[in-house]
């Protein structure tokens, strides 16, 4: 088991000079995942925050091979790279092995890129798909995505006189991915890099596709103080809003169980996207959120306990 010191002392694949927002958790997520790879990596990046801030021509913040094509096809591009690797290895043209990683935000993963992701998982390309999940189209200014939670105010589903914000719950991407019978899928969060590192390591070691959904609070569009990113990530886990768990060969394992679950308000308060929920007339929304979070947690506990293969 690596220590945090060992992880941070590794050479960085994403170096300083990128232009991510102050308080953004994407760089440590990316560096932690890549540092868990024993092999060289090649990265296919979907259009999004990470892509636009790390490669402003003629500069690049990447010291690993990296490609961006468009928004919805990181999984397909990664599948192409992996296929080329297999072809070269078969022909004896290359002897090194490589870990191929596709990275996208939630828009490029839950929504527009879902088809490419599902196709690549079904064909079992050996690659890792990473979604840094900031729960909306943050690169374009806080529009709703399939990952946006119930009750969040976004620019395309704003709260208003007759609207509470997004009226649906978010898509459960990890279980949808697991339904493809992939060997490893996990949900992690930016505040627990050791957990993320261990999950990435497991993902790289399996024979076939692996998937990591990493919670990444967005300081800019959730409207909170940039120094609080890690705190909000931690609160997401402590309120069971974002449970840390993994699905290994279909079996659910919860990696963190809060001793005493904090109420959802703890996570919501201070975030601009949920500010409207604290008006008296929206009290029912918070109650409903709490109910949904509790029910989901109970379901997850039962899944773990039963040992049923998803």
């Amino acid at each position, binding site marked *: 088991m690596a220590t945090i010191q060992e992880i941070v002392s590794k050479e960085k694949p994403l170096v300083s000079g990128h232009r991510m927002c102050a308080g953004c958790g994407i760089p440590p997520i990316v560096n932690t995942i890549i540092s868990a790879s024993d092999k*060289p*990596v*090649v990265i*296919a990046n979907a259009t999004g925050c990470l*892509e*636009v801030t790390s*490669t*402003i*021509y*003629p500069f*690049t913040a*990447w*010291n*690993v*091979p*990296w*490609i*961006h*094509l*468009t928004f*919805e*096809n990181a*999984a*397909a*591009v*990664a*599948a*192409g*790279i992996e*296929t*080329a*690797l*297999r*072809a*070269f290895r*078969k*022909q004896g043209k*290359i002897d*090194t092995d*490589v870990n191929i990683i596709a990275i996208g935000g939630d828009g490029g993963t839950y929504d527009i890129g879902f*088809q*490419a992701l*599902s*196709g690549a998982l*079904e*064909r079992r390309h050996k690659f890792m798909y990473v979604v840094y999940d900031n729960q909306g189209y943050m690169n374009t200014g806080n529009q709703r995505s399939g990952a946006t939670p119930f009750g969040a105010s976004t620019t395309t589903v704003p709260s208003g006189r007759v609207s509470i914000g997004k009226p649906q719950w978010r898509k459960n991407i990890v279980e949808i991915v697991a339904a493809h019978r992939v060997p490893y899928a996990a949900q992690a969060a930016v505040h627990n890099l050791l957990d993320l590192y261990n999950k990435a390591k497991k993902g790289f070691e399996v024979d076939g596709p692996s998937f990591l959904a990493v919670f990444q609070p967005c300081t800019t569009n959730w409207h909170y103080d940039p120094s609080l990113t890690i705190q909000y990530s931690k609160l997401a886990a402590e309120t069971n809003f974002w449970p840390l768990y993994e699905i290994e060969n279909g079996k659910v394992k919860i990696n963190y169980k809060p001793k005493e679950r904090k109420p959802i308000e703890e996570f919501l308060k201070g975030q601009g996207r949920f500010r409207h929920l604290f008006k008296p007339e929206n009290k029912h929304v918070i109650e409903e959120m709490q109910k949904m979070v509790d029910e989901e947690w109970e379901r997850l506990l039962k899944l773990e306990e039963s040992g049923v293969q998803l």
Partner: protein
Amino acid sequence: MAKLKPLTGAQATAEAMRQINPDVVVAYPITPQTPIVEFFAQFVADGVVDTEMVPIESEHSALSAVVGASAAGARAMCATSSQGLALMWEIVAAAPGLRLPIVMPVVNRALSAPINIHCDHSDTMGTLTLGWVQIYSENAQEAYENMLLALRIAEHPNVLLPVMVMQDGFITSHGVEVVKVLEDEEVKKFISERKPDRYLLNVKNPYTVGPLALPDYYFEVKRQQEVAIYNAKDVYLEVGEELSKLTGNKYPLFEEYRTEDAEAVIVALSSTAGTAKDAVDEMREQGYKVGLIKPKLFRPFPYKEMRETLERFKVVGVLDRSIAFGAYAPVYSEIRNALYESDKKPKLQSYIYGLGGRDIFKTDIKKVFEELLSGNVDSQTQRYIGLRE
């Protein structure tokens, strides 16, 4: 020694792909392209190629995976038609910007709506501004040879751009012809190996592909891409001469058929040029001075050469198998553009024909020639062949 084989246009293309033996082929079915990837899949299944083949979930992903494989250093191909090309449009636009030498056969088919699976050129004519080199093929023989040319053009260091090789849906793709196929060894030598300077799987030399270019650089990148596609013209001629030594055939920018003393010529792409040759022969027997111009390299368009050629004639009819709604038809537009600087402009007439696979016959083409020779032409109006009104 080349062998004669009875092949459909789709089989001829698959045969060229077998001989090229690409590292990666990504396939998604669409009529009438499907037999290309099916024939090739059989080569993979029989182990006669080294290719890793990915039967993928959409055309958008197909070209995306090909871009990934090509950037990784592989020779990578896919094939498409019509709606498939439309679905991959976004990546069709992006691939030339990344300067990747992808070869993609396209079997021309009408675009929806209404849905129609038969031949016209609306699909590829809609991609003219995107930066692919485009070569049109008259028959299975040309479809086969153009694939070999395309690979060399795409990978030429002065070009490094993707290339589309077109053939006509069903007419060429499904019709059987006798095709002269080169020896595998000859092809292998002709195409040699792809040796990219930089590629993603060279992990010791990391490189960033497809960055964000803002107003301070985007323009320059696009200008370089434009220079590259203009370079493709000379490369086409140069590589064509080399291929000529193997096949005995010529690879001009456009083919001239019985034009030496012609008064009226028509310009027609792909399989219609074959029909037109028969019409020209019959009319020549009757003493009419008529000929045919068949564009082969359509992007980059050889304006200067076309102008110098067309200046020799009195009247030119241009046959388009697609409509540019609200504008002059695509081939006609290019011919008009080519002639703008000329002091010796021939009279021009635009004809639209064959949409959605409607047949065009020798008699239709003869009528066009008769109309051209009669002087009854108007360069500003479009006429239609075989349309019920």
